């Protein structure tokens, strides 16, 4: 057995005989399991609620009596976003973005009923998910187990004794890294087992699960390597612990919270009121279809009359108001779409600013990987908004076409069409986004994690050379 393997085994024996370390490790494992099962339970409950609400709103929609189609445009529809399978592991931004949209004519509504807006303050500081435990708490445990790995050997002269047996500094570092790397992976093992079990049921894609495990393995190994390297370079255990706790606070607590604030300051988003005012202004510029002197709609009317080869709107074979609704919806939708694109572009700019700093805070990188693969990142939210908006536009325009095409054949002052027409309109079915559809979005965060590991390997090499010298 090589010296490195012997030293690694000794680190495991240290842990096995360290009651405090064992209890802390057992608690963390328990926390991961509890977080996994409560998250799965919460996901099932939310999914059941979502299905119940969707069925209820669909039934209510279908139960509407014969009506004027435009009334159904304003009656609208609620659509719910299904939770991505792996979102139980990492809730990502789901808790903040909302999962329900009311779809109606003439306007785009934002998603509502975000969990964080309805829940306790505690939720805003981090939902208890396996991702939260692995991202925030696991590094603390790994630090606690690794901070003294080399420094204590140095302090107690066992390092010198070890070297005097013919062991090289490189073997010492390799053994410590191997030992604590394996311990770190052991800490993540219950979470990995839950992910594998989840994939085995067919609920999640194996590729996503494999990449998720790979990402978290790199994250945990990074902390093990950081713990050992700082322990070797700091010299004294208490110095190593102070440095590592400081690094944890900066990397895990401070930067991931401060950077979004900095991003907001650098690229400010319009407030809801500002957005509403801008939209209102743009909508006013379209024109007023009820104004006989409105140049745009006068022109539109002339084009319609020319297309049908008639002189007046009364001679049209379709209802002119229905055609105006179709055109009005097209125009307002374009304005809303442009505003949404600007909003997404600004948010993406902020996200890009934060992601660039993952070089100094790899937590940002593992969050990116985790949320993207869990389907709970901003891109998944935008995808839901996009699909919901496409559905809304199609739904409203179908009703507008019904108004234009069916109403001219109906007599009376209160013309109505059969409810059977809108009962035939397809219901919203969210096509869950494939997390691996844009693999390039994972390249940067993975590169950051691997870059950190490479830098730490370089520092470990330097520390190995210093070990021989410090043993004087």
């Amino acid at each position: 057995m090589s010296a490195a393997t012997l030293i690694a085994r000794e680190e495991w024996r240290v842990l096995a005989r360290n009651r405090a370390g064992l209890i802390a490790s057992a608690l963390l494992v328990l926390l991961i399991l509890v977080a996994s099962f409560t998250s799965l339970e919460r996901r099932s409950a939310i999914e059941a609620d979502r299905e119940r609400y969707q069925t209820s709103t669909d039934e209510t929609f279908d139960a509407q009596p014969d009506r004027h189609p435009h009334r159904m445009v304003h009656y609208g529809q609620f659509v719910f976003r299904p939770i991505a399978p792996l979102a139980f592991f990492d809730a990502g931004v789901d808790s903040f973005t909302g999962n329900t949209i009311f779809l109606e004519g003439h306007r785009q509504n934002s998603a509502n009923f975000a969990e964080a807006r309805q829940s306790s303050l505690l939720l805003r500081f981090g939902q208890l998910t396996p991702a939260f435990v692995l991202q925030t708490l696991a590094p603390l445990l790994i630090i606690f187990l690794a901070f003294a790995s080399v420094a204590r050997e140095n302090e107690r002269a066992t390092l010198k004794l070890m070297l005097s047996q013919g062991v090289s500094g490189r073997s010492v570092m390799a053994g410590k890294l191997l030992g604590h790397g394996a311990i770190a992976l052991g800490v993540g093992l219950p979470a990995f087992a839950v992910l594998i079990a989840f994939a085995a049921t067919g609920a999640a894609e194996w590729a996503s699960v494999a990449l998720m495990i790979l990402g978290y393995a790199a994250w945990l190994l990074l902390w093990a390597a950081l713990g050992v390297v700082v322990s070797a370079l700091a010299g004294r255990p208490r110095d190593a612990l102070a440095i590592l706790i400081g690094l944890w606070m900066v990397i895990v607590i401070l930067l991931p919270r401060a950077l979004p604030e900095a991003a907001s300051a650098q690229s400010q988003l319009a407030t809801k009121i500002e957005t509403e005012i801008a939209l209102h202004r743009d909508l006013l510029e379209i024109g007023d279809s009820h104004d006989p002197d409105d140049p745009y709609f006068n022109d539109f009317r002339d084009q319609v009359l020319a297309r049908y080869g008639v002189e007046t709107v009364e001679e049209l074979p379709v209802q002119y108001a229905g055609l105006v609704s179709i055109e009005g919806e097209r125009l307002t939708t374009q304005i809303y779409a442009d505003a949404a694109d600007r909003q997404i572009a600004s948010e993406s700019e902020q996200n890009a600013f934060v992601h660039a700093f993952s070089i100094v805070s790899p937590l940002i990188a593992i969050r990116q990987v985790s949320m993207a693969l869990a389907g709970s990142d901003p891109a998944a939210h935008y995808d839901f908004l996009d699909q919901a908006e496409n559905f809304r536009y199609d739904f409203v325009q179908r009703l507008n076409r019904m108004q234009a095409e069916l109403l001219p054949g109906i007599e009376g002052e209160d013309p109505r069409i059969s409810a059977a027409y809108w009962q035939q309109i397809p219901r919203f079915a969210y096509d869950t986004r494939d997390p691996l559809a844009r693999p390039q979005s994972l390249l940067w965060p993975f590169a950051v994690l691997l870059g950190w590991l490479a830098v730490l390997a370089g520092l470990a090499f330097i520390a190995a050379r210093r070990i021989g010298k410090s043993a004087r």
Partner: protein
Amino acid sequence: MLDDTGAAIAIEGLHHSYGSNAVLRGLDLTVRRGEIYALLGGNGAGKSTTLSALLGFLAPEAGTVRVCGIDPVSDPRAARAAMAYVPENVSLYEHLSARENIGYFLALAEAKRGEDAIENSLSAVGLAPEAWDKRMSGFSKGMRQKVAIALALARDVPVLLLDEPTSGLDPRAVLEFNRLLDAAREREVAVLMVTHDIVSAVDIADRIGFLGQGRIEEEREASATGPRFDLNALHDRYAYAGAAA
């Protein structure tokens, strides 16, 4: 395993400085097989630096160092395989027993020794058998020192480097330790002992060297007849050297 002069340890013209502080200034020192050499010197005289040079932890600025003919800087692995080292105030691993500590360090040294060899060495240093399998967290300083010495004995190598080996040992344990060194001498082991314990040095050493001004200032050899050394004269010499340092 020996150099041309037959010395297991051979240091010639060794210079070493820490920054502007020249610690060793032309140190010459030889220890032959079957010889116990006690190196005395005041604090900062360079005793530990000498041991570090022998272990290959530092490269000499000038001069040569050989352990059994091997340069410990160019081939530290081979040199360290030929010597066992007992640091001062070593605490070993508190979560391991004495037996496990020795087994672990022997494995690191790739020294394949059976349980018998470990028990013999523990027995030789006078550690009670009921303590062999107890965790060292409850051991006294003297007991820890005995385990470290037992490890050095279990290595069964031609050179022993001892840094203040009797520090923390009670008088009886010092006597037992001296008997162990006697046995080592009979096995042709070369022992270099860095110590402040002049009494122990007088009892066991074949030669005593006074380290001062970065070199051996004076060397005395044990008399074959009568008292081995003149303790009073040595004490005065040592006190003088300490004052000078």
